[in-house]
């Protein structure tokens, strides 16, 4: 059913339809409205058998979700920014324990300086935890990917946490038409959760053991293997989603106009939609440009990226996060996928801390690269001239 809703409602509604057993919540801007919406549903008796519980911190919320999942429950939480960083220790732990929890990250920059506005530094910072990370470009995609996240995470070939990354404010607070799923469709797609191991008095087992040197490495490599298997599982589920809803979100990447493109722009998240528009327009003008949307940042789609970019003479990677002291994260990963190929490489950082990225900026960026006016390498776009003062 198509309805004009806020992004956070579209997310909350998809969570409700996924029939989680436990939701643990702690507020943080700009995620707060997601758990507020769920709280309202809970208060109105619309969450069925779902238990909704407020935590004393994000750390507590993540820990409750971990405990619930270990007990055999389908469990959900959402957070942003500092909240995600506060959860980090638990999330690494949950991934190592192979608990298929799902969380939504309403992407927000991290402090200091304090900023409630959007970039993706928060989720990028825990890319190594063993959590599947999927970045969406619209509220429709966010809505659709939540049942899928549960299904992939809970697949016995995967058993890893799944993080749906949604740009804070830009998506979460946008009010727009979304095709809302119905219960029947979601139930058809997402079966009830059958845990592989759970805390069960009939079959006592120890979860969260400690592993001395003869075991530890194998457990971590097993996570790597699971992440590899997740690739296949996810592709299958993307296809099934398309069959069921008629909405095709593509695979790990969406490559548009890349085959003959001289310049390809690579990006993740809501900015992709803007880039798509600009690329379409420039194509009409006869310019050979293309775009590559990265959907899953972990597992990273090396082969797909390489395939999409193999003909490009120039590659522009847009990062909305830093890895201070090294290359920006997405640029580094794209480069590693291109090893052995040597297109002209532009690593562009923009939009940190909610700095707006206007259409003209993207157009100019692509035109400059196309016309050879931009120097390859790393640069910051939309940055004001400033002088650092150390008093």
């Amino acid at each position: 059913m198509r309805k004009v809703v806020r992004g956070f409602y579209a997310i909350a509604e998809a969570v409700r339809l996924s029939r989680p057993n436990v939701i643990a919540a702690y507020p943080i801007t700009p995620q707060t409205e997601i758990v507020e919406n769920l709280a309202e549903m809970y208060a109105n008796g619309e969450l069925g058998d779902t238990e909704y519980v407020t935590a004393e911190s994000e750390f507590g919320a993540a820990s409750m979700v971990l405990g619930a999942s270990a007990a055999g429950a389908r469990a959900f939480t959402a957070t942003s920014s500092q909240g995600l960083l506060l959860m980090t220790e638990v999330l690494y732990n949950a991934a190592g324990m192979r608990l298929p929890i799902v969380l939504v990250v309403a992407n927000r920059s991290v402090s200091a300086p304090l900023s409630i506005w959007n970039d993706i530094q928060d989720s990028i910072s825990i890319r190594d935890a063993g959590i599947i990370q999927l970045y969406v470009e619209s509220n429709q995609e966010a809505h659709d990917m939540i049942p899928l996240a549960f299904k992939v995470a809970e697949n016995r070939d995967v058993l890893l946490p799944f993080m749906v990354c949604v740009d804070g404010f830009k998506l979460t607070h946008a009010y727009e038409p979304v095709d809302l799923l119905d219960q029947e469709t979601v139930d058809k797609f997402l079966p009830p959760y059958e845990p592989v191991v759970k805390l069960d008095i009939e079959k006592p087992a120890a979860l969260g053991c400690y592993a001395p040197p003869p075991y530890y490495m194998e457990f971590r490599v097993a996570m790597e293997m699971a992440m590899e298997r997740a690739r296949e599982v996810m592709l299958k589920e993307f296809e099934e989603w398309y069959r069921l809803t008629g909405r095709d979100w593509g695979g790990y990447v969406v490559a548009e106009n890349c085959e003959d493109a001289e310049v390809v722009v690579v990006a993740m998240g809501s900015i992709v939609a803007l880039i798509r528009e600009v690329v379409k327009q420039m194509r009409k003008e006869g310019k050979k440009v293309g775009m590559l949307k990265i959907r899953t940042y972990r597992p990273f789609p090396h082969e797909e990226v390489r395939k999409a970019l193999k003909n490009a003479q120039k590659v522009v990677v847009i990062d909305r996060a830093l890895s201070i002291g090294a290359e920006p994260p997405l640029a580094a990963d794209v480069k590693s996928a291109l090893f052995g190929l040597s297109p002209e490489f532009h690593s562009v950082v923009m939009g940190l801390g909610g700095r707006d990225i206007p259409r003209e900026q993207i157009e100019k960026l692509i035109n400059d690269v196309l016309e050879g006016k931009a120097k390859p390498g790393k640069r910051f776009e939309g940055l004001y001239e400033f002088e650092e003062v150390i008093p």
Partner: protein
Amino acid sequence: MSKMKLYIGASNPAKTSQMKTGDWGTEWAYVDEEKCIACGQCVTFCPEPAVELVEKGGKKVAVVDHDYCKGCWVCYTVCPVEAIRMETKDIYKL
């Protein structure tokens, strides 16, 4: 080497009984069955647990399992009738 079995998410059910920690200490506890009144204090307090009450010759007595007795003296100290003695293991005897 045979392939290691890695149970994802969980360790096996109780397995430590295979760990014979009775070799840790230099002494073992022994029960004087004549004196033992089967009060169960040693059973309650044994941290391992390595003591249980067993039916022997028509009476219940405490029996120490030396596979797990670490020789800590706790049972010795709680026995109300001095029925437990600690003995140095042969290998440590001077």
